[in-house]
């Protein structure tokens, strides 16, 4: 027979309620401690990146710089030649923009989607200057016969929408034609898919190379007595702590055609003085430098898993008659796989976004997607395309990050 328990009352309140309240208070305290950093990261990091990525679909330039034209173009169905109102709005907006000094920006934007548009618009500036009344259509066609072509207006309509998929299409070597169909870029402009593939390929090669080079030394370190293993760990950590630029500089010094390694091989007679090998400013240079730079990221997670494998199990296997190879493949290797997963994912995710090393030692063939994003940010100023390429890269990296969390767990991430 169950007895109904009286709630315990202390200071006039049930204990259970007081306990819940204390727990709630602790929750608030814990959250309050995290809050400053959370806000800091949101404001200085997450929101800036989010708003940058928004530029990949955002298309405000025509709407703000040529509002009348944009409004008229959106009325037009895009099938036959546009009506007189569109021409009128174009002349008026271009004149206003020329006075405000923003016509060049309009011309640049249209030029992304139509080669030659920049000169067409800038040239028309002078011709429209004294036009005050219609018919505007005839005036424009007289100024340049391309204004009489349907395709020109279709392009203008295309670039005047508030949100555009064009940057994303460009990022995967596609474009919108005048009728809104997705078409392939002309073959000389198809570079980005190739570049994404190359970036993944380089990251994969670096991951495999670091695994091949890193596995033996992680094994060696994990089987040594502490005195020696500590020393070896320091040898792995020292490159890790050395400035990235210093290490890249060293690779230039080592690998360039007049560099240390070529000199050494000439001196030893392996190659002739004219036969110096080009080892840098190409894909090979990127691979060598990145492998060395990322090797510690592979070795350290593998080591931390391997040192938990008891050596007595290996001895037991051998005493039961297994030869060293079987012992390694049946006992050691399977238990070291979590370390391979952790190190491999880390190296892959870090190398996919590599920028500095490819920029300095990669030449033309060793560039990665980050270098192209930097180019569009700094040189071509096609920020929409930079944002689209960046979004694709970031989504890829976040998927890998999520995978890392599932496989390894981010709270297991360790440094040194």
């Amino acid at each position, binding site marked *: 027979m169950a007895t109904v328990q009286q709630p315990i009352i202390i200071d006039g309140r049930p204990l259970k309620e007081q306990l819940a309240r204390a727990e709630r208070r602790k929750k608030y305290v814990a959250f309050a401690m995290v809050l400053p950093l*959370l806000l800091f990261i949101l404001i*200085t990091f997450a929101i*800036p990146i989010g708003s940058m990525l928004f530029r990949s679909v955002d298309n405000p330039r025509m709407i703000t710089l040529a509002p009348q034209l944009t409004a008229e173009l959106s009325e037009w169905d895009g099938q036959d030649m546009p009506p007189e109102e569109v021409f009128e709005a174009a002349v008026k907006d271009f004149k206003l923009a020329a006075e405000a000094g923003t016509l060049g920006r309009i011309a640049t934007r249209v030029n992304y989607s139509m080669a030659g548009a920049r000169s067409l618009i800038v040239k028309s500036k002078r011709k429209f200057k004294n036009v005050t009344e219609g018919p505007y259509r005839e005036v424009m066609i007289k100024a340049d016969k391309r204004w009489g072509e349907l395709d020109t207006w279709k392009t203008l309509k295309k670039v005047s929408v508030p949100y555009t998929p064009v940057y994303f299409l460009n990022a995967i070597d596609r474009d919108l034609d005048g009728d809104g169909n997705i078409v392939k870029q002309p073959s000389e402009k198809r570079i980005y898919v190739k570049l994404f593939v190359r970036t993944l390929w380089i990251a994969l090669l670096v991951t495999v190379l670091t695994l091949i080079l890193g596995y033996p030394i992680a094994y*060696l370190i994990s089987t040594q007595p502490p005195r020696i293993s500590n020393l070896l760990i320091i040898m792995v950590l020292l490159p890790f702590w050395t*400035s990235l630029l210093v290490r890249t*500089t060293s690779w230039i010094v080592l690998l360039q055609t007049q560099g*240390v390694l070529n000199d050494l091989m000439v001196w030893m007679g392996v190659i002739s003085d004219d036969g110096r090998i080009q080892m840098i400013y190409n894909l090979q240079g990127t691979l060598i430098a990145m492998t060395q730079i990322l090797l510690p990221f592979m070795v350290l997670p593998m080591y931390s898993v391997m040192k938990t494998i008891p050596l007595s199990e290996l001895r037991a296997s*051998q005493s039961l008659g297994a030869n060293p190879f079987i012992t390694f493949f049946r006992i050691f290797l399977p238990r070291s796989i979590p370390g391979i997963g952790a190190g491999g994912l880390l190296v892959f995710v870090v190398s996919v*976004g590599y920028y500095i090393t490819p920029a300095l030692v990669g030449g033309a063939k060793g560039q990665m997607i980050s270098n192209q994003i930097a180019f569009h940010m700094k040189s071509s100023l096609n920020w929409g395309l930079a944002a689209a390429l960046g979004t694709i890269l970031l989504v890829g990296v976040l998927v890998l990050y999520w995978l890392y969390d599932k496989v390894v767990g981010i709270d297991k991430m*360790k440094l040194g």
Partner: protein
Amino acid sequence: MSLPAYTGPVGRIWHAAFIAICCLVFIFLMAPILVIVPLSFNAEPYFTFTPAMLRLDPEAFSFRWYLDVLGIGEGTGANRGYEWAFAARNSLFIAFFATLLATALGTLAAVGLSRTQMPFRKPIMALLISPLIVPIIIIAAGMFFFYSKVGLAYSHLGVILAHAAIGTPYVVITVTATMVGFDETLIRASASLGAKPLRTFFRVIMPLITPGVISGALFAFITSFDEVVLIYFLADAEQKTIPIQMWSGLRQQISPSILAVATLLITFSVILLVAVELLRRRSERLRTSAVT
């Protein structure tokens, strides 16, 4: 690793080969650092060992590139000493304040994240660690637009905030790691003895997690000290740092002064590495002694 007595000849050969492979990998790992140090003492403006250097002729070695960097030598253009001194001052200034900010925010957050009552622990942790994973070029692009809009671009403050943001994950990771062995009853003990939460934080929690805090701070410091891309996007000549000076040197004409700077930076990282290693051992000692 000493081989057991029952190892056969195949095993011995295999073992020797294994050791040889490991030696080669270690040479590959250390080569860039080992080569650059002697080359920085080259008396000639070349990036390779001169025959005289290989004969260990004392005439072939000199401190001229170091003197250039320190502003005493005859260096020209971008390698004039004061350019490097200016860059070094900027680097230290930016790294110091970025570290301070990252350490303060990161430590507090890590202590909060280690509480069992912390709500949404996993997603928040994932967000706070993400600056470590997101490609630097994306961070740079995002911050470039944002900082230009709010007027922080091309200022020391902007760079400090940016560097603090990418430094915090290190502090969060190292401090969370030291908190794993933390005994929560100590907090209750402190409270029951009448200490207010703030006093508990500074007198009980802080002394125990100090090794983690310092090693996280060193990581944050080296991250800022070595950072190029954010500065390249967010700063101008006024905020020029050592890495950006090296970066432009490497992209234009490479001068041997860069090797001298590189050697100085290697010395600096050796010191930091030793500091972190000592701290790590101390922290391990503290943790094991707390358990026993």
